[in-house]
Structures are given as C-alpha cells and as structure tokens.
C-alpha cells in the first residue's frame, strides 16, 4: 500500500544517498518479483559497499550480464521505484548503475 506521506517523508533519505559510488559485493537476478515490480522483471538486486563503508541494497539499472560480478563499480541514481498507485504520487528512490 503506497502512502503519499511516506513517499514525501523519504525524499530526504534519497538526497543523502545521491552521487555516491561503490562496488557490488553480492547480487541476485530476481525473476519472480513482488506484485509492484511485475513489469520490471527480470532485474538484478545488488548489495553495494559505498565508499566510506556504508552498505545498501538496490536495484541495478542500465546493466548487462557482464556487470553481475563481484567488484563492479556503480553509482547511485534516482529512479522511479514502481508504478504509482491510483493516488498518482510517483514513488522515486535510489537505484544504482554501472560506472563505465
């Protein structure tokens, strides 16, 4: 259940994580997704260690299979997380993309 208030409250967390780089320390390729992610599967979910040591879990975008290895360098970006529900507030969040 999406909440516009919760989406709004999360905006500052997104800003704090923007523009960070790190590397993939583990990954999977989700082929059987939760309902809100049906149109995106299959997609990689990666565990990333950011510079400074903080770890995050995020979807990998703009990827190909060569990126799904230990040590791939990535950076954090803003993306739409899932389809908006009928309230129409778009849920944005952090995903990561390979650094070429």
């Amino acid at each position, binding site marked *: 259940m999406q909440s516009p208030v919760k989406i709004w409250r999360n905006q500052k967390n997104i800003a704090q994580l923007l523009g960070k780089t790190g590397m993939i*320390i*583990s*990954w*999977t*390729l*989700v*082929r*059987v*997704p*939760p*309902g*809100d*992610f*049906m149109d*995106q599967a299959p*997609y990689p*979910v990666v*565990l990333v260690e950011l510079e400074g040591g903080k*770890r*995050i*879990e*995020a*979807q990998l975008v703009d990827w190909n299979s060569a990126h799904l290895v*230990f040590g791939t360098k990535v950076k954090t970006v803003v993306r739409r*997380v*899932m389809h908006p529900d009928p309230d129409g507030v778009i*849920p944005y*969040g*952090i*995903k990561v993309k390979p650094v070429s």
Partner: protein
Amino acid sequence: MKTFVAGVATTKFGELWSASPRGLARLAVFGALKDADIDSKDVQALFVGNMLSGMLGGQEHLGAFFAEELGLSVPAFKIEGACASGGLAIHNAVNSLMSGQYETVVVLGIEKMTDHKPEDVATALMGAGSEEERLAGATFPGLYAILARVHMREFGTTEEDMAAVAVKNHYHATLNPNAQFHTAVTVDQVMRSSKVADPLKLLDCSPISDGAAAVVLSTKRTKRSVEVIASVVATDTLGLAQRKSLTELSATQKASEKAYTLAGMDAKDIDVAEVHDCFTIAEILATEDLGFFPKGKAASAIQRGSATIGKAKRVVVNPSGGLKGCGHPVGATGVKQIAELVEQLRGNAGARQVKKARVGLAHNVGGSGATAVVHILEI
C-alpha cells in the same frame, strides 16, 4: 519450573484449497489435546503463531478469532515474528508457564497462503525485510541468493552442493505422510528447475503452503511428555546491508550458544534437528551456525549423507522433510518443528524414525535471519 510438551498434532501441509483456517485450527488443536489426553476445559491460554493473516486474509485479532472457533474462553494471543512466528509463540507459551501464570496452554501455528496470487504472497512476505529491501524489489529467494553468492565465493560452495540439500529433504518428505511433497528429486532435476533468483532455482526454494500444527504445553510431567530444556530467542538487523557478516546468521549462533549453555549440552549431543531450510543455502548456514559442521564444511557433509536418515552417524537434519519437502506455511513451521521432534523422541515417527533419538533441537528463523528461535527437547 520445568515445562513439558504433553501432546502434538500436525495437519497435512500443502495446497489445501478446500480447507479454511478455522478447519485447520480445529484439526491441529483438538488433535494435540487428544494426543495429550487433556480436556479443552483445562486449557488456560492460547498462543497463535501467524504472520500473514492481516496482509493476505484481512483478518487480524487472531487470538480471539481462534479462541472463539475452538470454544476456548481463555486469554489468547497472536505472536508474530515473520517465519519465526511459530517458534516465538512456543517461547512465549513456555515463558507463561515458567512465570507460574498458567499450568496448561496450547500453541497453534497456522498459515493459509495458497488462496492468494504468488506475487501478492511475495509482497506480503517482504514485510519481514527492511524498507530498503522492499524498495529494491528484493524477494526472500533473492535475499538468500545474495547470501548464497557470498558463501559460494568464501567457501567454494557450488549450486550442486545446495541441490543436495533439496535431494535429502525431498527424500525425507517421501517418508512423512503429512508432507507437501512425496516426490524424490535428483541433483540434476534441481539444477534444471527454473530460476527464481539466481543462483537459486525453484527446487532450492521451500514452497508456498497451507497448514497448521499445535502443541499442548504443561508444567506437569506425564508418561508420554517431552521436556523443553531450552527456549531461546535472538535478533539481528532486519536488512542484509546492516549485517557484520554475510557468511553466517549471527542470531542463530547467539540463540544456539545460549540454548546449549542452558541445556548443559553441546552441538554433538543433538540426535535429531529440525532446522529452518527455507532455501537450500539456509540449511547449509543453519547446520554450520548451530555447530553441527565447521564453517564452510556443511555442504559437502550433507552431500555425503551425514545428515540423512539411516546414513548419519550423528545428527539427522530435517527428518520431516524440512521446510523444503514438508512445506512452509510460515506461522505453522516453528510449531510443526516441535511436533516433529516430539514424535521422534517418543519413537513414534514411523518410516522416518531416527534411531535412539533422545535429544532434539528446533531452529526457526524469521526473515533473512533477523529473528532466530532455538529450542532443545529431551525425553
């Protein structure tokens, strides 16, 4: 104060479209009371282990709901701890006896999952993870796949090694009349099953299941009762990103270390164990973290038959078929594990009987290791 399991019952696990939660609860609870030879009017409290009734069924308030259905006008509680809800319910029931508040209580573990679409069940199960994991589109197979990938890199564990866990647990399930699956599988079949979250495949994953289990707990010893000699809960971070280590579930280690201390025992004293194999990698992690095998060595040991009925020299792991073969109605699993151990320790387990089993251990996990519950039982 000592606590004893006086009676147990488990329903068939599986895709039970014709069964309602009410009907499953009656079968399990009245079965356990009959097994204990205790009248329902002597029950003083009801503890219900369940995770998803609100998100999937729209029914909360499960304590009163099942108390009404069972005709028990007693204090009743729903205990929730994701897939460890059943184990947590047992722990709370044990505590209520230890406190002197009650002398006889019933624990019901129950879940109805197959009435709903798989993507809705996957969404609901992600309630056990962190917000960050939900926004990443992660699933539980995906989270355990991330742990598997690290285990493979650190210890050389292979996909075939993981498949051997499914082969063992499906074999054990063929010996259990209440199991969801009565089909043996081969490593090759596991390897060729469709991918769910790489490197985990369909046959690496426990199924979506319906089912219920119940146990009657009492402060009085009877001829057929089994003593609960340790009941311990530990917690860890909800999400994987906040964990110190990805090659172990530290909640399992913490809970089992304390349980062994309370019981005055060691891992080598356990004859039979029901462990939380929601995925094949999870049994490998569990049997290492519980101290049955050294870190990094469980996969090859399980593959050699070191945890299989009739072959194991020490502990037999998941004689019921585990979550993988017996099925995983999430709130029921932790209670079913206790019911299985009681049958094993009484020597009533039929074709899947572990010979000379005197001490049993149950290990129930919530989420990707955020809750771990360990019980040790002795006859």
